[in-house]
């Protein structure tokens, strides 16, 4: 049985806004399967009572005070944008 189907590869690619050719779908299906197989090795271990690791460093509570910092100027903020208008970022139409 396949661990990941070609359809699932297409779905994940769509979510990530990646355009894959049929060839690439096949290629990534094989590669992703290998990766998932490898990760599945974890199932062979007894992981009872082991917390999921979200961070490898034992640090908690990095907080900042609610004090203002200077923001960028509008010109700086917009300086990398391919298209701007009236102080806004201009983006292609997103709703029909």
């Amino acid at each position, binding site marked *: 049985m396949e661990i990941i189907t070609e359809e699932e590869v297409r*779905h994940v690619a*769509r*979510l990530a*806004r990646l355009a894959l050719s049929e060839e690439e779908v096949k290629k990534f299906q094989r590669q992703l399967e290998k990766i998932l197989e490898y990760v599945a090795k974890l199932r062979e271990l007894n992981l009872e009572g082991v917390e*999921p690791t*979200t*961070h490898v*460093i034992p*640090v*908690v*509570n*990095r*907080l*900042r*005070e*609610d*004090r*203002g*910092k*200077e*923001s*960028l*100027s*509008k010109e700086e*903020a*917009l300086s990398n944008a391919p298209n701007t*208008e*009236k*102080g*806004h*970022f*201009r*983006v*292609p*139409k*997103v*709703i*029909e």
Partner: protein
Amino acid sequence: MDFEVMIGVEVHAQLLTKTKIFCGCSTNFGRNPNTQVCPICLGMPGVLPVLNQEAVELAIRAALALHCKILRRERFARKGYFYPDLPKGYQISQYEEPFAAEGILSFERNGNCKTIRIKRMNLEEDAGKLIHEEDRGSLVDFNRCGVPLLEIATEPDLTSPKDTHTFLAELRQILQYLEVSSGDMEKGHLRCEPNISLKKPGQSEWGTRTELKNLNSLKGVEKGLLFEIRRQKRLLESGQPIRQETLLWDEKREIALPMRVKEEAGDYRYFPEPDLVPLVIDEEWIERVKRSLPELPDDRKKRFVETYKIREQDAQTLTLTRRLADYFEEVVKIHSDFTLAANWIITEVLGILHEKNLSIGDLSVTPARLAGLFHLIQDETISKKMAKEIFVKMVESGKQADEIVRVQGGQIRDEAEVERIIEEVLKGNSEEKVRYQSGEVKLMGYFIGQVMKRTDGKANPRMVNEILRKMLEGNPQKSGVQKK
């Protein structure tokens, strides 16, 4: 056909911090576009978010006020989706374990008390603002991007648009009272997204649930829900399917239209946020926030029992909403018969609110006016029974108790007058008088009834009783009648 209605709400409240949740940009509303942005909230590569402590404190406040269990080890998650209002391509939120959960919020409407369960609350960041222009694409302002939000979701315990309105008003009041949020719906500082489903009576399955967005006022929430309930009813009655979808409320046209379908929405691929270390909230922190809180309803309840010596059950009812509790405390500040005040507010005041479909804030009888009515009971100008009728007149006419008493007359307490009326009654009932005097003492009730009939119930019952005995038996039962 009457359908049963089930409503749950998801509320996003903007927290009253000075700066954004992960950077030092200002949260001020209404500034020029893209003037309150920095590399962090613009999602530039290589930057790291740092959590704003004040946002956490405000969330703890709200969690305590809504009786939620606060998670002791908080984690953040990335919610991935592509939309131009989200520069990082993901929103930092909380996912598997909520910030806090399993709370309750009680409110009173029409004299009925309801308790709504709070399912969960999460800390998260807001997205930017999009201005859609016909055919020309959209403009983006990132000033709002990264502003801290508290997301509060209820269980579907609400049963009508009116209840939802009251619940939201109550929630907003608490958030404002605790200075957690400004609650300004017009500015989008409090956003509400209700979900609705209907059921034919007697059926066990609820219909498909839909969600409403873009409701910018409490009135709008009510109108939007009424619209959506009507729409679902029509579909169910004609046997058509209800699609699971989100509808956008159009305030001007007063209709709700399906939102454009975001492709694969819902597939957010949440995963733990690697850029933020866990947040540990210990007992000491919670205690510290608790101490800084204004009095919460529960504490107020305990204080009411101790200070005013009223029953716990009554204190519970009186503190269900802050307004009702305030009302009670205003009354007892002026009138010191606490038990009378408590009983009256619970039975008569809540009773009339229920009957007239009002909330305590709508009541024309202010605490001072109610206390005025109590004074008239206390000095025996009126009986308790008369007071109930006068109270109804106060509500209906907007007049004060003494004004009404002046017109219709208070209790008859003049001994000579009561004697005169009793004499008349006895004259007209000479046969009964003889029967009484020959031992038929149960006729006393009949005589009292006759006196009350003649006086429209205004004679002081104690005085009537004593004078009747004196005149029928020739000697007073007790030592005279008090003269005032």
